[in-house]
């Protein structure tokens, strides 16, 4: 079992997450998707099922969840809105830095359920477990980017 992190290291993680969110927002706003897509991972085919957050997390997924909480915490403290995609990109970069394999999934709600704020959604899964962005479905997966 990992030793608990000291308070300053926890704050450093939240700071890292905040910087990554800001970076991700800038990327989304100013750089065409095709220019940075490959940096998030390679496109893979995946089932069209939505997220499933059930089950006990593996050690890697548990660590990813801890990092995801820092991303959510950082997003809540930033003066700018950070929706699912910048959060997912931020976590993907933090996971990559730590060598934790993951997938970033972009999905759409079925047409009859569309019309709200979250018609499109992005989440991060580690070893099949959603660690960030687990919104109630149904979702149809459009794009799955898997880390190398």
């Amino acid at each position, binding site marked *: 079992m990992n030793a608990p992190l000291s308070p300053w290291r926890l704050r450093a993680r939240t700071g890292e997450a905040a910087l990554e969110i800001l970076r991700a927002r800038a990327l989304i706003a100013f750089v065409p998707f095709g220019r940075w897509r490959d940096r998030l991972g390679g496109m893979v085919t995946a089932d069209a099922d939505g997220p499933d957050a059930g089950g006990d997390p593996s050690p890697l997924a548990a660590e990813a969840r801890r990092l995801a909480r820092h991303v959510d915490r950082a997003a809540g403290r930033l003066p700018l809105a950070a929706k699912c995609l910048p959060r997912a990109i931020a976590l993907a970069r933090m996971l990559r830095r730590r060598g934790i394999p993951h997938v970033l999934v972009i999905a759409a709600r*079925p047409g009859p359920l569309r019309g709200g704020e979250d018609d499109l959604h992005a989440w991060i899964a580690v070893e099949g477990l959603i660690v960030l962005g687990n919104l109630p479905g149904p979702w*149809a997966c*459009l794009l799955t980017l898997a880390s190398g």
Partner: protein
Amino acid sequence: MTITKDGARFVETEIDDEVVLMDVESGTFFSLAGTSLAVWRLIDGSRGEGEIAAALAADYDAPVEQVAADVAAFLAELREAGLVTG
């Protein structure tokens, strides 16, 4: 000239009676349903614009002249979006 989808340019998923496309270069999303979805499905690399209009007209039991303009306009949008060539 045949119309061809640029398969490297988009990903798609079918949801009920709709196809959602994501342009993987721009990140733009497109929703196709009804006749636009019918045209999209007719783009199989073997048909030209006229043949697509004819097939759609046959499917909908409508005069070719009536649907040809709509097909041309839709294909122009797809070309402009970079999703098809030809």
